[in-house]
């Protein structure tokens, strides 16, 4: 069930995954940016977990958990990814003010996140940003729900698509964010933000498994 305790597990698994991938994310960012993406997200998610631990009582809605992530990331991450992920989670939270998610709520979550990122960052797909992962995830989620998939299945399809979307950024030339300064030299390495987006959605899927 994609309920509040799933959301809490999702947060913790995300924090864990970001911690483990910190060096890798930083290395991706070092190649085409300024080498802080891993550090930025790690700082952010560690703060999220701290606040979650201090939280009493448990949140009632999935959206409450996402809102806590949003405000914490906004206040702890900085950089481009702080406001982008902050706004993403904020919009996702608005779409999930319910105790547990059905298939269409999962679509709303992912689409909300995508809307947040694009509203804030003004990027479109193909510019080698996290939008490439979120757009792929949103498209896949909508298609899956349309085909009548379960909430968990919608999430799984979104996550897989995000991973593919992140991988697709490798060959792209960046035209948004810091990597755009490199022009053609930005091709050949995956976008750090798209990669972290894939990690986040992967953690969402693994949080389902762990709850069973």
């Amino acid at each position, binding site marked *: 069930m994609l309920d509040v305790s799933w959301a809490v597990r999702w947060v913790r698994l995300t924090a864990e995954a970001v911690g483990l991938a910190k060096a890798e994310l*930083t290395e991706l960012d*070092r190649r085409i*940016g*300024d*080498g*802080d993406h891993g*550090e*930025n997200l790690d*700082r952010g998610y560690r703060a999220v977990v701290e606040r979650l631990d201090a939280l009493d009582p448990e949140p009632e809605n999935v959206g409450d958990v996402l809102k806590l992530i949003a405000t914490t990331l*906004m*206040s*702890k*991450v*900085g*950089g*481009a*990814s*702080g*406001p*982008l992920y*902050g706004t993403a989670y904020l919009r996702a939270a608005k779409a999930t003010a319910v105790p547990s998610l059905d298939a269409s709520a999962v679509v709303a979550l992912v689409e909300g996140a995508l809307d947040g990122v694009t509203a*804030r*960052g003004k990027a479109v797909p193909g510019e080698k940003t996290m939008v490439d992962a979120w757009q792929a995830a949103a498209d896949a989620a909508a298609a899956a729900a349309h085909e009548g998939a379960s909430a968990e299945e919608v999430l799984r399809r979104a996550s897989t698509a995000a991973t593919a979307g992140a991988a697709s950024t490798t060959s792209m*030339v960046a*035209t*948004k*964010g*810091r990597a*755009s*300064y*490199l*022009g053609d*030299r930005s091709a050949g390495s995956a976008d750090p933000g798209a990669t972290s987006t894939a990690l986040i959605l992967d953690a969402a899927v693994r949080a389902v498994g762990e709850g069973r």
Partner: protein
Amino acid sequence: MKKLLNDPQNAVTESLEGFTAVHADLVELSLDPTYVTRAGGPVPNKVGLVSGGGSGHEPLHAGFVGDGMLDAAVPGEMFTSPTPDQIQPALEAADSGAGVLAIVKNYTGDVLNFEMAVELAGDDDHRVTTVLVNDDVAVEDSLYTAGRRGVAGTVAVEKIAGAAAARGDDLETVTAVAQRVADNVRTMGVALAPCTVPHVGRPGFELGDDEIEIGIGIHGEPGRRRAPVATADEITDQLLDPVVEDLGLTDGESVLLFVNGMGGTPLSELYVVYRRARSRLEGLGVSVSRSLVGNYVTSLEMQGASVSVLRLDDETTQLWDAPVRTAALHW
């Protein structure tokens, strides 16, 4: 990596604590969230000036807080923009009621975080305008980039807008002056050796023993091109030419020439670069009527320099000359 640091996680805070202890007559430090304000609070009826950005560029920005320049500075983590919850209280602390100008270097992170903070401060009835600094001619300003980066020219914007605010100009006028400076300043930089962000632990890029990076950004972002090592005069020409061209400088104009060190280059070398840039400008009939040479917008211990040229008019010249009393600029 060898650095005079304790836990890298505390580097920004410990450094700011040292800084404010030295300059307690000029600045006050807030922690949690972190920002620096002018000692004694905002000046009544004066437009407030706030800037900020990632740390690692010292003395920018905290070194420019004081009379005649900034009212608050918001330092992020190393090379990482500050967060809205740091920027918003700094904006509010700088507001004496006459409104606040936020001076933002054009990086996606800085732009987005300031944007959110300005929205939040606006919700609290603070009038905030924003001027983007994007002086780095190394980056093409086109649809295909996030736009030019804000680099050393920021100092000129902060100094001159600060003087306009100090003489009592209103928010619209201060904003217009800041924008005019931003529109008329261009910069290009070079790196001879990279820098290492403490928590990363390895250099931001690699350079061969006989390579330099022309068009470097202040976070060690690779620049326009790798080039072979050359003499100071040759390198200076490679920095100055695009600056002059982009500004469209012509015979008879008057400029501020600013040679900025990246942090790890001896002052003596900066003067060698200045000497060449000045003689080239004079050769073009451009009068170098004001000058600044030193380490003002740095990239940790990076070796290299940037050359900035600001087209001056009578008013901006006067405002540049107006008194300033900060940790890093003082006259």
